[in-house]
């Protein structure tokens, strides 16, 4: 019964994504009564679209599972995911839009006037995109295995196939509408079960307390207590906050959405609304963690903590109303799959774009490039963007979704964040400085991430420093960028002054276009 419902939910999520992606939502084709001015994407709709793309498996399943497994410190995760947009709002939203850049690599090129910085940024976009895609595919595999017993490859391959179909068919039709819809689907799929379960707890179990021993429970609920044997909680907390609050601005799939805004002002308004939407979403997530502590002392043997939410309805409602529990589980699965698909398609689009634009032209000789159809070239990019993380997802297990996504944030916080912030606000940033800072940030945070995921598990300071590198790698990268820039004033881009004026002047005041 559960299996059938869950399979139906997954099928609905996949089919709806493919159909909407290929044909666009009904009513988007218009005839001559079309008025362009009234059709630009409004900040409200764009905010929902950003939310739809941003809320990934880590937010949907991972955060509640981390809270359940590791205690109150994990409440910083949803805070960090939201604060990231506040930083984006304050520091880069408007200048980024005014630069006219579509991707992070475009911004780097327009600000630093260097193909080498662009190339490095392109490599980083691909690397971060893949890092972020792996947990999405692992999550999908995990959900399907938990609910139907299918091998982990199936879920990942399903996500890969759906995303490749939709993106490979020539981008997504009416992406904004699709993604805005996906946000609301995710929101409802999270809110309805949360409220039902909360209501059930209050009504039926008379607010029953947790079966946990009181001292364990106190430890779970106390900040910085190191529940679950975690060490150096204070460092972990600060490092996570830094990674999440700076990392958001460097996410390739989030940044491209800003291009849709009409101007810098609209970009800022959009970001404010994103913060509101995310707050409304994340305020519900801890409900699952808390209810989990009350009803689920332990998960069934062999189940990954990330599947906690899927086990919760059955544990709360019990055998008395099994069909109800199945429906709730199916709803959560639907939301989770939409999360996998929406985030993955945004990421694949960004990665494939880079592969298509910056890599394929380099490896295919000029003469042959002309003959290679544009659409064909893009599809090669899409295939690569999907297959690499799908394979990588099968190579290791046991690192939670939220941790992996956190590592991707650490990399962007140590690379793109200093580049964007210094690029927007510091006229003395030089090309050499940017290159050096990016390289240092990428190498240190990348090595730490690789060790955490692939290397042997470490304890004590080394383990914490490597599994949450942002607190040392991001300042190191920023300092390198600053010092190297000051040391090489000769490589400050020629048109810096003009670029800075464009980045910071509201569009309506620009009188002398370059």
């Amino acid at each position, binding site marked *: 019964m559960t299996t059938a419902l869950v399979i139906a939910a997954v099928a609905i999520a996949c089919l709806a994504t493919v159909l909407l992606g290929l044909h666009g939502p009904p009513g988007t*084709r*218009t*005839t*001559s009564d*079309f008025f*362009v001015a009234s*059709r*630009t*994407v409004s900040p409200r709709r764009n905010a929902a679209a950003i939310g739809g793309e941003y809320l990934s498996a880590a937010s949907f399943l991972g955060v509640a599972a981390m809270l359940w497994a590791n205690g109150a410190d994990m409440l910083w995760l949803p805070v960090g995911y939201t604060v990231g947009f506040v930083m984006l709002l304050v520091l880069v939203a408007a200048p980024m839009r005014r630069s*006219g850049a*579509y*991707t992070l690599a*475009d911004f780097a*090129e*327009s600000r630093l*006037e260097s193909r080498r910085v662009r190339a490095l940024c392109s490599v980083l976009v691909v690397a971060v995109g893949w890092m972020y895609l792996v947990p999405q595919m692992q999550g999908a595999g995990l959900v399907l295995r938990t609910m139907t017993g299918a091998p982990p490859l199936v879920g990942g391959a399903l996500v890969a196939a759906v995303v490749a179909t939709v993106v490979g068919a*020539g*981008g997504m039709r*009416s*992406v*904004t*509408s699709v993604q805005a819809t996906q946000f609301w689907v995710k929101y409802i799929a999270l809110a309805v079960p949360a409220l039902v379960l909360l209501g059930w707890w209050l009504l039926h179990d008379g607010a029953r307390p947790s079966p946990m021993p009181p001292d364990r429970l106190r430890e779970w609920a106390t900040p910085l207590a190191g529940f679950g044997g975690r060490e150096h909680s204070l460092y972990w907390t600060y490092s996570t906050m830094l990674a999440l609050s700076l990392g958001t601005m460097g996410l390739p799939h989030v940044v491209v959405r800003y*291009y*849709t805004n*009409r101007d810098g002002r609209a970009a800022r308004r959009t970001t404010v609304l994103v913060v509101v939407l995310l707050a409304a979403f994340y305020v519900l997530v801890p409900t699952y963690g808390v209810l989990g502590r009350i009803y689920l002392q332990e998960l069934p043997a062999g189940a990954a903590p990330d599947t906690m939410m899927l086990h919760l309805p059955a544990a709360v409602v019990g055998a008395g109303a099994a069909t109800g529990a199945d429906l709730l589980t199916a709803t959560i699965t639907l939301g989770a799959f939409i999360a996998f698909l929406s985030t993955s398609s945004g990421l694949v*689009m960004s990665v494939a*774009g880079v592969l*298509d*634009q910056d890599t394929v032209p380099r490896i295919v000789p000029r003469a042959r490039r*002309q003959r290679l159809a544009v*659409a064909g070239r*893009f599809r090669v*990019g899409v295939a690569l963007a999907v297959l690499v993380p799908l394979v990588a997802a099968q190579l290791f297990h046991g690192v939670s979704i939220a941790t992996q996504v956190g590592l991707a944030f650490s990399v962007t916080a140590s690379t793109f964040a200093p580049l964007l912030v210094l690029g927007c606000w510091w006229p003395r940033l030089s090309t*050499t400085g940017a290159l*050096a800072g990016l*390289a*240092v940030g990428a*190498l*240190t945070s990348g*090595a730490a991430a690789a*060790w955490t995921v692939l*290397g*042997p598990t*470490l*304890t*004590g300071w*080394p383990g914490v*420093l*490597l599994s949450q590198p942002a607190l040392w790698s991001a300042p190191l990268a920023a300092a*390198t960028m600053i010092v*190297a820039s000051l*040391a090489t004033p*000769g490589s400050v881009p*020629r048109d810096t002054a003009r670029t800075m004026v*464009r980045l910071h002047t509201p*569009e*309506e005041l*620009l009188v002398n*276009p*370059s």
Partner: protein
Amino acid sequence: MLSTGDQTTMLALVGLLAALAVAATVVLRALRPRRGLGSIEEQATYRALHTAGLATPHLRDGLTPEGAPRAARPLRQLLGVPALALTDTSVVLAWDGPADHHQDATMEQVSEVLHTGRVVVLRARDVRCADDGCPIRGAVCAPIVSGDRVVGTLTAYAPRAGVGLVRATRELAGWVSTHVELAELGRQRTRTMEAELRALRAQISPHFVYNSLAAIASFVRTDPDRARELLLEFADFTRYSFRRGGAFTTLAEELTNVERYLALEQARFGPRLALTLDIEQEVLSVVVPYLAIQPLVENAVRHGLEPKVGPGLVTLTARSRGNEVEITVEDDGVGADPARVRSVLSGDHGGDNVGLGNVDARLRQVYGDAHGLVVETQVGAGTTVTFRVPRYAPGVHAAPRGK
């Protein structure tokens, strides 16, 4: 004997140190110019070309007050002289090196070079210096030439102006001249583009202005409200088409203008002319060359639909294609002979669809040859015109929304 925990700790620390060492190496390498090893000739060639390369970016705009001081240092290092001056035809743009009390006399010293375009060698008596410690006792002035004009001078100041220095200075001035000429060429390209835009603006009108006004006149008595509306559209259309400054605009602005244009054409054609727009919302903010789409629509109406008997349909599509946006103008009109279109696009055939060739030329100039117009047509089979613009191209920015 270490415990397992300590061992892993050590291992991790070693790994961390290794990562830091790699990072430090990368930084140092990025900061230090690479030294080529090899034979003496190789090293000399490398050093000369590398030093020259340092000056190149500052000469990209020609001899400018901003670029010249930065270019002067590497140029001086190339000659190995104590001081070097760059001038244009009226002032000293840059002086690199000590003893800049000589700077005041420079314009006087180079005036002969500016007039004759020949290299002038100055001896100690010409340079005249009261300071005994001053290293400057001679100079070589060479002209910087662009086309046939002398646009500036390069003067090398040295203790002695020997034959070697004269030869080297002349060669160096020649090298600078090449770069100044390249800059001039770039400026000319921009000017050509502006001229093409002006030409396009000037040639849109005659037919269209006459026809529109005639159509509006026909409504003045029967439907004054519509006439007023159309006149306002006409006013907005002309304001947009004749606006000054800025070769680029957003797709939204350009499409609004296409709508105005078609509203006016519909006044003339009536229900015979229908339009379908299929535009993805997300691409409205993409930057396109100003007047890139309206001429294509005008071409479709005038050469596709006007000669056709019965109703006609123009379909305008804008889709995202990865990092590019594809824009298509399609009509189901009479079509054209592909050979004729080819000659229009190659510019051999002026005729009355200058618009098509002009848009094609501007697109290629801005985005490269891969981004020109693609025209599919056949007599009696309608016409489809497609082009792609990248969402971002270096140096392409929309002008502020027109006032």
